[in-house]
């Protein structure tokens, strides 16, 4: 009897230690992450003023804003997203509709998953070798291609996933009406899967909007306003990187503002994407 109650007590103690550990590390993780957000808001919010959105990035010691970098980031992300949406949706469609069950399909799916988590710095080096070194110059276009390459696997994956979720009945009834499969895919399946594909696009956008490493080798930076994509264009992540590593207090303040802007964008876009998924799930 005592043996048994001893065992009981030991199991209880073990359980208390275990659950205590889980509570403690969760609290620790949440505190660490809250501190990061708190710092970001605390240091960034004081520097926000209209000039941030009007003036170009300053030289050390002078007054300026982040407008050229904000415009540049939007331009490059937009161009990258166009590339990623076209290739990603088509590739995802092929995987879900044509390549299902084929050996080639499994290979593409597997390598797409690897590409999905491949270090972004390597994608930057690749685009450098392809588009920067041969043409002897950094350009926003090269930056956009690098960002597009990073976003494509995300969109491919989500497109394939949502298309696979559509009932076979949808395809069969379309084809039974005499429509070619390609028409059914474009007019019926894409439409049914629209919500999911938009979510994937938003998540991909959230991923590339803060990417810094690939831009260091493809676009770099520009202190002034520039709208020609074959030239270097300023962008938020590289501006943050340069300013944060510099010694000038004013520039560091701008770096915090930039970091806050990026974080708010990423969080906002992710929340919208999650909200859309939930709506989709409900309907």
């Amino acid at each position, binding site marked *: 009897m005592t043996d048994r109650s001893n065992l009981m007590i030991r199991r209880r103690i073990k359980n208390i230690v275990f659950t205590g550990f*889980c509570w403690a590390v969760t609290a620790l*993780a*949440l505190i660490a992450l809250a501190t990061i957000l708190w710092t970001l808001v605390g240091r960034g919010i004081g520097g926000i003023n209209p000039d941030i959105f009007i003036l170009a990035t300053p030289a050390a010691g002078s007054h300026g804003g982040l407008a050229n970098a904000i415009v540049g980031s939007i331009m490059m992300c937009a161009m990258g997203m166009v590339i990623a949406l076209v290739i990603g949706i088509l590739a995802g469609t092929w995987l879900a509709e044509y390549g299902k069950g084929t050996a080639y399909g499994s290979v593409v799916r597997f390598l797409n998953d690897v590409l999905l988590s491949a270090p972004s710095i390597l994608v930057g080096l690749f685009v450098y070798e392809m588009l920067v070194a041969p043409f002897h110059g950094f350009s926003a276009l090269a930056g956009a291609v690098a960002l597009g390459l990073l976003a494509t696997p995300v969109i491919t994956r989500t497109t394939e996933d949502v298309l696979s979720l559509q009932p076979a009945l949808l395809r069969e009834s379309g084809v039974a009406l005499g429509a070619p499969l390609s028409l059914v895919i474009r007019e019926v399946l894409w439409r049914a899967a629209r919500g999911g594909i938009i979510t994937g696009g938003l998540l991909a956008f959230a991923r590339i909007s803060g990417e810094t490493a690939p831009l260091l080798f493809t676009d770099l930076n520009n202190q002034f306003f520039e709208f020609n994509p074959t030239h270097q264009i300023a962008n938020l992540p590289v501006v943050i990187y340069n300013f944060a590593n510099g010694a000038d207090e004013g520039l560091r303040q701008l770096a915090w503002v930039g970091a806050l802007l990026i974080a708010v964008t990423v969080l906002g876009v992710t929340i919208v994407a999650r909200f859309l998924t939930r709506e989709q799930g409900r309907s």
Partner: protein
Amino acid sequence: MLSTLFEGLCFAAATALLAALGGLLVALTIGGWPAISKFGFGFLTSTTWNPVTDIYGAAGPIVGTLVTAAVALLLALPVAGGVAFFLTELCPAPLRRPIGTAVELLAGIPSIVYGMWGLFVFAPFFAKHVEVPLMTAAPSGSIWESLTIGIPNGSGILAASIILAIMILPFMAATLRDLLLSVPAAVRESAYGLGATTSEVVMSVTLPYVRTGAIGAVMLGLGRALGETMAVTFIIGNSHDFPTSMFASGSTIASTIANEFTEATSDVHLSALIALGLVLFVITFAVLALARLLLSRQEHRA
């Protein structure tokens, strides 16, 4: 006709993805070849990285990469596990969704934000409250002392590992939670029904049930830590010496490339950096491929 064209387009897009990955490998190999052929196998084993004399050996950055990623994983794994167990077994129902969402959102914060926080907030704190006390407490002549040698400025191998751990934590916690949620309710409930405690249910039933996938999730976290650039570049100190102490400055493959690429003047230097990229590609590809294999095996079982 149009139908075939459309199918062809889709096929071409899928092949483009394949070509991108293949092109990545080819481009890195071609770009890195001058350095690889010049230094041969010594490129991997030599610790001399000297842009002045144009002699490059990558042992320092390679070991730096492996050590920081391994330490980060060691630190993040128990915490990520604890958070995942908390969310699946212990969390009060009304808090489950907010905390789960918070963890997922934090997984998406760009690394440059973590890097800035590491440089301006974490490093001073770490120097004052961890490095200095540990260094002064270390008895002279002990292993402890040699492990804590360095300048206590808050940056270095261990500091970078901790930032990496914080970065991969939300991602690993979210993946592990999703895996644990995929365990059929009947399996969990029958364990509870037999009188098992929470720790026994998690450790003997649900975690073993998703073991393969959990290993995959951990490897995905490792893959992230290996290739992470910006957060590490801010805080590792960027020295090419072979890392011998927890507080010493070091470098990783990614931080070396990010730091030196735009300043590389000689062709050999540039080529050595791209060869470093090739090494990183090989390491991460192996890790990620294994991770995906394990995860897909889990999916087929569940």
